[in-house]
């Protein structure tokens, strides 16, 4: 169950902070430049955070009480491989879903 105080705090604070990030240079700091190292690091935020966020669920899914699961491992692998090869999020996602749903029938 999601705690409602926590939920509304996230909605408000995350909303405002995300807006501040978007507004920063476009709205206020247009003439300033970011230090090179910071600009460089920002390029890697999404690729560093997103896969790490779900990695534990791939290896130790809560649905199987933490036991590694062939269907989920294979589905994750197929998603990544198809995504790398096709460069299309939608193909990667479809391939992953088909694998996840299909493997239990094959085993």
């Amino acid at each position: 169950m999601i705690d409602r105080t926590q939920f509304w705090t996230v909605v408000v604070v995350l909303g405002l902070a995300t807006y501040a990030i978007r507004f920063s240079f476009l709205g206020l700091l247009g003439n300033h430049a970011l230090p090179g190292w910071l600009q460089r690091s920002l390029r890697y935020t999404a690729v560093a955070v997103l896969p790490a966020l779900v990695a534990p669920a791939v290896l130790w899914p809560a649905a199987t009480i933490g036991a590694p699961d062939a269907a989920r491992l294979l589905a994750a692998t197929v998603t990544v491989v198809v995504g790398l090869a096709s460069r299309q999020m939608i193909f990667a996602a479809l391939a992953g879903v088909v694998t996840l749903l299909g493997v239990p029938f094959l085993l």
Partner: protein
Amino acid sequence: MSAPANPARDSYLRGVRAALPFAVVIVPFAMLFGLLASEAGLQLYEILAFSVSVFAGASQFAALHLLQDQAPMLVILATSLAVNLRMLMYSVTLAPHLGAAPLGIRAVMAYLLVDQSFALSVAEYDKRPNMTLAEKTAYFFGAVTPVLPLWLGSTVAGALAGRAIPPEYALDFAVPIAFLAMTAPMIRSWPHALAAGLSVVLTLALTVLPYGTGLLVGASIGMAAGAALEYWREKAAQKLPPQQRTGA
């Protein structure tokens, strides 16, 4: 007789047309968010408030996931904001193009600065260096025009569908697949691969740390490593004599 030329209108329509194919990604992604949020017990108005306030899909999934885990407030905010830090780079990149627009317009643009409007606008400004400020502004708004209603509409559709789906259909793996599908096409270089790989390995190794703080440590180190490798590779390329640099 032909209609009078209206370059800003043409730019706007070009932006709309360029953004339409993104529907294929936005609709299922937003529906999935609505669906999972509804399964997590959120009401329709709460889900809609979430999408309107934040309007950044990946961070909303991250926040929802951590809210369900009842992680501490600071960890939820730090992790979901880290996902959105890339928008600082978007803001920096667009400022030279759009900084001369009136403040009120820029304030609206900032709200609408998402992956799609950023990527399409930068590509267009690059391709047509002679665009006027009015044309650039119009193109930006065009490129986000299909995104906002599709995102909000599909979130609602997903939330309504979520009420109809019985809980035994396990959706636990939808988010991992969505995030991996989103990330894999972003791995365009070895520094990207290093940032992602190192971050994953460290986060898994640090799961002993409480409340997902291992993720923050792992992702920060991964990010820094990616940036460092990029820097090192640029330096190495500059040191090569010119005939080797062309790859001949």
